[in-house]
């Protein structure tokens, strides 16, 4: 690696660390105010008792606190763990502190049209707007040991994401339209992250909502949400 590139990398990493510190600071402040009970408008801390049985099931795999930071974990009424843009959603093995999977939505751009990839024609969304997500993700190499199949991965394509018009609103998941698939996008994200890999890139969704929340929930059993 040449020096110029090395210093740019270090700078970028420092900026990222600083941003994460700010996010954590904000979360700690909110948690302190909430005292582990219902926060703001209809979001829960994980240890609070939710009302519906379905929600109870979805919350079963939510940690009470972040094993890495010790912070309270906040969920909304859709059982999604609440994150800010740039803040990672995590999967951590019972008893471990370091997450084995992390996914972060860094930014969301709203577009009314895009270029049909390869064909230089303009296409429009089927659902409303195109959302171009800047997403990063990592999966620990150890993930390979616990998956029955030969290759362990976590999906990252448009079908893994949903959107809602705002906090605690119903999430829609059919955002992986052919229009979204067909959009030309720079640095397209791989369809999945494999064990031992760390990747970043852009994913295009076809969403009814130009503002609201992005949800990453590949199994539709509860995931993470970021407001945009």
């Amino acid at each position, binding site marked *: 690696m040449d020096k110029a590139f090395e210093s740019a990398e270090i700078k970028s990493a420092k900026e990222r660390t600083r941003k994460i510190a700010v996010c954590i600071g904000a979360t700690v402040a909110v948690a302190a105010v909430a005292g582990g009970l219902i926060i703001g408008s209809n979001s829960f801390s994980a240890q609070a008792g939710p009302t519906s049985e379905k929600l109870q099931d979805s919350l*079963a*795999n*939510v*940690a009470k*606190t*972040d*094993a*890495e930071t010790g912070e309270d*974990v906040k969920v909304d009424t859709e059982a999604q*763990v609440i994150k800010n843009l740039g803040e990672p*959603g*995590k*999967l*951590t*093995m*019972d008893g471990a502190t370091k*997450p*084995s*999977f992390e996914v972060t939505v860094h930014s969301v751009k709203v577009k009314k049209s895009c270029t*049909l*990839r*390869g*064909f230089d024609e303009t296409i429009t969304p089927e659902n409303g707007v195109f959302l171009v997500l800047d997403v990063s993700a990592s*999966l620990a190499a150890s*993930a390979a040991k*616990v*998956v*029955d*199949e*030969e*290759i*362990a*991965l*976590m*999906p990252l*394509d*448009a*079908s*893994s994401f949903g959107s809602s018009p705002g906090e605690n609103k119903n999430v829609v998941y059919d955002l*992986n*339209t*052919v229009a979204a*698939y*067909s959009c030309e*996008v720079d640095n*397209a994200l*791989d*369809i*999945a992250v*494999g*064990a031992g*890999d760390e990747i970043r890139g852009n994913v295009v969704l076809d969403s009814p909502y130009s503002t609201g929340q992005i949800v990453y929930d*590949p*199994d539709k059993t*509860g*995931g*993470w949400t970021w407001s945009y």
Partner: protein
Amino acid sequence: MQLGPYDPENAPPSKYIKKVTETRTTENLNLRTSPSTSARSLGVMPKGTVVQPTGKKQDAWWQVKWGSKTGWSSSKYLATRTYVKDDSVRYMTRYTSIHATKSLNQRIGSVNLRTQVSLLEVSGDSAHIKTAYYHGWVEAKNVVRTRPAKQYRYVQKSGSIYSHQDPSKDSYLGRIHHGEKYEYRRWDGTHRRDEIYVNGRWVWTNTTNRDAVTLQYRYAQRDGSVYNTANKSSSKVVGSIKVGTKVRWGAWDAANRRDEINLNGKWVWSGVTDRGKPAGYIPPAVDVKNYARFSTKGLTLKKNPVSSSSSAGSIKKGWKVTVTHKAEGGWVRINAGSFSGWIKEAENLRRHGPYSVAVYGTLRSGQSAYNVMGGFQQKVKDQRLANASLYQLWNRNWTFLTNGPKTVVAEQFQYSDSAGPGMLRKLDIYEGQLKYQGRPMYTRQNVYLTDESQSWTYKTTSFSEKVVKNSGRYISSGDFLKRS
């Protein structure tokens, strides 16, 4: 009946048939340094290993040699047997005389090319052999271990076959015909006849030679009768032949002006055949198992498989067509959309469509991404990709074509020379975005269809096929994961 001195029963024993005594291990067996189970092992001899006993024995232990090693093994697991090893089998490289002595000056009989014999002894340049009829001496160079290849002769001119090489002793056995090929074993220079194998019997003829002969054909110039002989005054009608019928030719009888022809497998004589096709001749169409090809240029189809036939329509370069029939002269009947007609196959059809793309997922007619496939000059539905399977991952919008034991329904789009290269470039970009670990999930590959044609399609690579077939999602792997 009294046996003669050179009858095979009086042959001496062959020096190449010997009694052999052999000792083998009956189980996997240790070879030990001394005759005791506590002695160090020199190795385990696999079951069935041949060993050489030295003759030394102690109790139930034998000393044996195994390769370069000598040691002791339990005789309980060694079996010795004696058998006869026949290494005398040889073959004759040519027809040759058999002589009474190795000086080869007293002929007693003969032996044919490729005959299997038993070698009794070799002395100098002579070999003592035993055949089914004699034992005697031949030149040793004519006796080999491997059976020589069969030799053949071709009928140069239709003619007779006989029971004997000598015309004064022979009897007529039938006819052989121009161009036919027969196994050969002997040339009789005195009577200038070959010995050949016809219908399960060795016979003699003077009408064969080494050179291959191209078969000749004749065409019936008009409807007519066929006869059992050439002779006009004595022959009988044995059938009829239709104008235009193509038949193999055997001979021409100038006196009676009749051809010998093979009609429906039987040799008969006709006065209505000739070399050229009759006026208005249309070769018969032969139904073939359908297969597909692509046109190499714009083609005019003919109504019949003759150049002078009228047009049945035309097709563009690059169209996919189905071949349904063939006819003499390299003609094939093709179906292409609503058109059907005859063209010459050579240089007009090819197996691979250079701008043909087979699609199987959302790019098909009526599917969500079909509009991407615009600009084609021909589209054919219900085609099948051979040796393939389809896989889906978590995103149901994706289908991945992999190698597999089945066929996959596809639709084929043919593009013109002007649109084709650009379309392939665009599709390469369109289909190239799905990646895993930075490597594409699909690439454009040339694949076979069940109709024996080849086309481009977007298919998994060996890497992505593994991803498609062998990947599991971490999040679904167990309940030991917590979200935060």
